[in-house]
């Protein structure tokens, strides 16, 4: 539980660093904090699973792996911010502090043992994200995204809380283990328990943007500043799935036959809605939003199966997805800044990548690897992520869902390749983009990680 304490204290330190006139210290300080927290997170790797803070939080290898993914993604994203020096109206100290505080929420969501902690964690994460989404104050698109995210987020929280209240009424406790005990002891649980579980799940599925609760996602991801879109599509999603997994496996595995069909229908809807709508997008950023919905569908497939393999499958999948998304958005940010000088409207469309391969071979290669990984082509981490997810579904015998998922992942190849085709086949007047050495290093690192896990997936799979 060291990460929560450290992030809270050091986050305040970063906030106070903002009083200095020079903002140059903020980026290295934040990176240092994240590096320390990442190390602290794995200090107890070999310990037995244990409970903290009067049975409020839980820690084992699974939660540590997930916190590790979240903190590592945050490290990469913070490294890509370049200190917000390009933007004069930006307030870097506040942004970095909110990012660090939102990580506290993410770690709490991953390690919750009590529904109170789940609620507090989700709120810490969401409220920070509402602010960061609207951080481009003069931009109407950012404003609109912030309001939509806020209203939808608060609405989902309300539904989730009602579910928790009903669960409390049915079982008499907020503790995961106690709820599990109740579910195991009562062969025919009350209707209140079922309704409560459903509403709790609906609230959580809102947060990870599963269909039919996904309608806010494209607008919010599109309107938010790209760096915070990256943050939302990786960290919020990873933490959300960890929380749903903890909830379902920790408390409700006993009534699997009740909820699996509901989750299966939602999974299929998510896969269809995400992939098919993504095909029609002209904006790369909006396509990535729908792609994040479709990846939520694959992760849900593994949760629906809920076998022994699901745990390592979703760890691997979240890591592969986060890394690939970060490098894709990293390239987009550079290219959009270059083309945005000429026309704001076209900056985030697929055409922005036209001719990228000729003058910027490195950026084109990074983009290609990340697209291949998201599409699930062999030799990238994304392929093994999909493979593990599909094999866990196969173990449970969910053949019909597997067929839909595989069909949809072939649809995915079409829209991911649109970016690669734009980069290599189309002519464009894109000149050579200047990339700072550190930025270049991060992009190379994410690409190498994607390829290494594509070649040696067992390395990570064996750990958890």
């Amino acid at each position, binding site marked *: 539980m060291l990460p929560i304490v450290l992030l809270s204290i050091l986050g305040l330190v970063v906030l106070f660093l903002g009083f200095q006139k020079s903002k140059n210290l903020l980026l290295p300080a934040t990176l240092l904090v994240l590096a320390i927290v990442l190390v602290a997170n794995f200090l107890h790797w070999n310990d037995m699973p244990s409970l903290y803070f009067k049975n409020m939080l839980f820690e084992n290898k699974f939660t540590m792996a997930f916190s590790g993914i979240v903190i590592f993604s945050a490290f990469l994203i913070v490294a890509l911010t370049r200190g917000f020096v390009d933007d004069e109206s930006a307030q870097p100290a506040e942004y970095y502090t909110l990012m660090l505080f939102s990580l506290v929420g993410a770690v709490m969501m991953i390690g919750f043992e009590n529904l109170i902690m789940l609620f507090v964690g989700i709120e810490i994460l969401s409220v920070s994200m509402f602010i960061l989404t609207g951080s481009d104050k003069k931009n109407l*698109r950012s404003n609109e995204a912030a*309001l939509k995210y806020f209203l939808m987020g*608060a609405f989902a929280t309300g539904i989730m809380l009602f579910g928790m*209240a009903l669960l409390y009424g049915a079982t008499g*406790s*907020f503790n995961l283990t106690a709820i599990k005990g109740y579910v195991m002891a009562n062969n025919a649980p009350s209707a209140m328990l079922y309704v409560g579980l459903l509403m709790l799940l609906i609230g959580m599925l809102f947060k990870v943007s599963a269909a039919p609760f996904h309608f806010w996602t*494209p607008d919010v991801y599109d309107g938010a500043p790209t760096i915070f879109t990256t943050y939302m599509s990786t960290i919020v999603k990873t933490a959300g799935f960890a929380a749903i997994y903890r909830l379902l496996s920790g408390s409700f595995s006993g009534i699997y036959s009740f909820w699996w069909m509901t989750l299966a229908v939602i999974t299929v809807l998510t896969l269809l809605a995400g992939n098919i709508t993504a095909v029609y*997008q002209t904006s790369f950023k909006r396509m990535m939003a729908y792609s994040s919905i479709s990846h939520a569908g694959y992760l849900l497939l593994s949760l629906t199966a809920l076998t022994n393999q699901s745990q390592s499958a979703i760890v691997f999948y979240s890591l592969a997805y986060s890394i690939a998304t970060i490098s894709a958005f990293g390239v987009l940010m550079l290219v959009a800044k270059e083309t945005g000088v000429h026309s704001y409207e076209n900056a985030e469309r697929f055409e922005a990548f036209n001719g990228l391969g000729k003058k910027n071979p490195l950026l084109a290669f990074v983009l290609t690897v990340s697209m291949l990984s998201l599409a699930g082509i062999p030799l990238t981490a994304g392929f093994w992520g999909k493979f593990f997810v599909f094999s866990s579904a196969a173990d449970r015998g969910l053949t019909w869902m597997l067929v839909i998922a595989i069909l949809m992942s072939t649809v995915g190849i079409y829209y991911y390749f649109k970016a690669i085709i734009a980069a290599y086949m189309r002519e464009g007047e894109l000149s050579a983009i200047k990339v700072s050495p550190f930025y270049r290093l991060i992009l190379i690192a994410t690409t190498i990680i994607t390829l290494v896990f594509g070649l040696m997936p067992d390395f990570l799979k064996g750990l958890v």
Partner: protein
Amino acid sequence: MFPLATPSIPDVVQSIPLQNYVLLATTLFIIGIVGVLTRRNALIIFMSIELMLNAVNLLLIAFSTYKSDPVGQVFVFFIMAVAAAEVAVGLAIIVMIYRNTRTIDIGFLNKLKW
């Protein structure tokens, strides 16, 4: 003569059947949901969300009293504190939008479309 001892609060709460509390909370909650889905004014939507949260609080307190278990009431404190934080951020977002567009009607928010 001493007056009769005033009944304790749990006894007062329990003089009404639990079912009625659940019904009342559910009704309030549904009014909140309908408000969110049908109103166009950001502030009214906001109020409806608060109504949903307060319906949850009522439900939690009723359950907590009937079970003689304080945890539910502790949760209510958490909800109230977090809702206050959320209100602060939400109102700030609404003020920001009002400064830029001079309206808080969500129908005018249509910059983001596919």
